[in-house]
C-alpha cells in the first residue's frame, strides 16, 4: 500500500454553510515529484467532487492556483508535497472574499491592476517597424515582466489587508514599475503622478512578505522602492 498524505482543506459554501470549516483528506503519494495540485486533483476526481479550486496550466505560468499552504502563499501546481508538514493545511488566499472553498473573488485585485494602466503609452509617432531597445534597456525589465498576477504577494501583505481598498499592493506596484522602467514607455511622469499617494504607494512599510511569497522569485519591495526613488528624484 502506498504512503498516504494527510491534508486539511478549507471548505466553505456560502449558500449552504454557516461558517467555514477544515475537512480532512488522505491521498496516496503518487511519486517523488508529486505537487500539491496533484493531491487536490485526486480529492476532486476520486474522493469529493464538491471541492472547488482554480487551476489551469499546472506548471506555474497561469497563476490560477494561488493558495495559502501551511500558512504561506504559493502556487499549488509547483509546490512539492515532499517537505510540507502534514497535515497540509490548504486555505484560500488571505484577505480576499471566498466565493467557495479555495476560490476567492479577485475582481478588486484586477481592478487595481487596471488602475495603473498596464499598457505601453506613447506620445511620439508610431515608428515604421518597432520601438527598439538596447540590450541594457531590455535588461531593466528582467524581474518585472515575469509576474503572473497570481496574487500570492498582494494577499500576503498586511498593509493590503488593512488598507486594500486604497493601497495598490505589491503585484500591481511591481507592474507599475515594469512600465516606469520600460524605455519605450513615454508616460513615466503621468504614472508617477497617479502613484504619488499616501495610500496607493506609500502604504508599503517594507514588511517584505511579498518577496517571500512570490512563486516566481520576484522582488516587489525593490520595485516599490524604485518608484519611491523616482518620485524622490523628480522632487529633489
Amino acid at each position: 500500500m502506498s504512503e498516504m498524505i494527510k491534508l486539511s482543506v478549507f471548505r466553505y459554501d456560502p449558500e449552504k454553510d454557516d461558517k467555514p470549516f477544515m475537512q480532512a483528506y488522505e491521498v496516496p503519494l503518487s511519486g517523488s515529484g508529486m505537487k500539491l495540485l496533484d493531491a487536490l486533483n485526486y480529492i476532486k476526481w476520486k474522493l469529493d467532487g464538491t471541492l472547488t479550486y482554480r487551476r489551469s496550466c499546472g506548471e506555474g505560468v497561469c497563476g490560477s492556483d494561488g493558495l495559502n499552504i501551511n500558512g504561506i502563499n504559493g502556487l499549488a501546481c509547483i509546490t512539492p508535497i515532499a517537505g510540507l508538514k502534514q497535515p497540509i493545511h490548504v486555505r484560500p488566499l488571505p484577505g480576499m472574499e471566498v466565493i467557495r472553498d479555495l476560490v476567492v473573488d479577485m475582481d478588486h485585485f484586477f481592478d487595481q491592476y487596471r488602475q495603473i494602466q498596464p499598457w505601453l503609452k506613447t506620445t511620439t509617432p508610431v515608428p515604421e517597424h518597432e520601438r527598439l531597445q538596447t540590450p541594457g534597456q531590455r535588461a531593466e525589465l528582467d524581474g518585472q515582466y515575469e509576474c503572473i498576477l497570481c496574487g500570492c504577494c498582494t494577499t500576503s501583505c498586511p498593509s493590503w489587508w488593512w488598507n486594500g481598498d486604497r493601497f495598490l499592493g505589491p503585484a500591481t506596484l511591481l507592474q507599475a514599475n515594469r512600465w516606469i522602467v520600460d524605455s519605450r514607455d513615454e508616460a513615466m511622469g503621468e504614472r508617477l503622478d497617479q502613484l504619488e499617494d499616501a495610500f496607493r504607494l506609500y502604504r508599503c512599510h517594507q514588511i517584505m512578505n511579498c518577496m517571500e511569497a512570490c512563486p516566481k522569485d520576484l522582488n516587489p519591495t525593490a520595485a516599490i522602492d524604485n518608484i519611491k526613488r523616482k518620485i524622490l528624484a523628480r522632487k529633489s
Partner: protein
Amino acid sequence: MRLVKEPGSARSGFRDWYLQRLSAVVLAVLLPLPFVVLILVYAGVVDQFGLLDIVDHFVSRLLHTILIFALIIHAYMGLKVMIEDYVPAIGWRVSLIGGMLVMMSGFGIWWMAIIWAWGG
C-alpha cells in the same frame, strides 16, 4: 456590468515619507548629544555650572529646538501611519490624528517655553 469608481491619486504621501526620513536623520545626529552631556556629568568632567553653561548656550538651545521639532515630526508621522493602518473608520482616524496633533503641538510649545525661558 460592474462599475469601478476610481478616485485617482491624492498627490500626497511623498512629503510624509520624506519628512519621516529627514527627521530620522536629524534624530540620529542630535539625539546622542544629550546623552553625551549626561555621561560627561556622571563622569565628573562637567560640573553643575558647566552643565548650565552648556544648556544655556544659544547653539545648545537652537540644537535642542531642532531636536524637539524632529522628535515631534517623526513621532507624528509614525503614529499617523499606525492610526491609518489600524483604525479603518475615517471619522475615528481624523479625530485621533487631530487629537494627537493638538497634544504634540502643546508638548512642543511647552518644551520651547522651557528651552527659551519664555516668561523669564
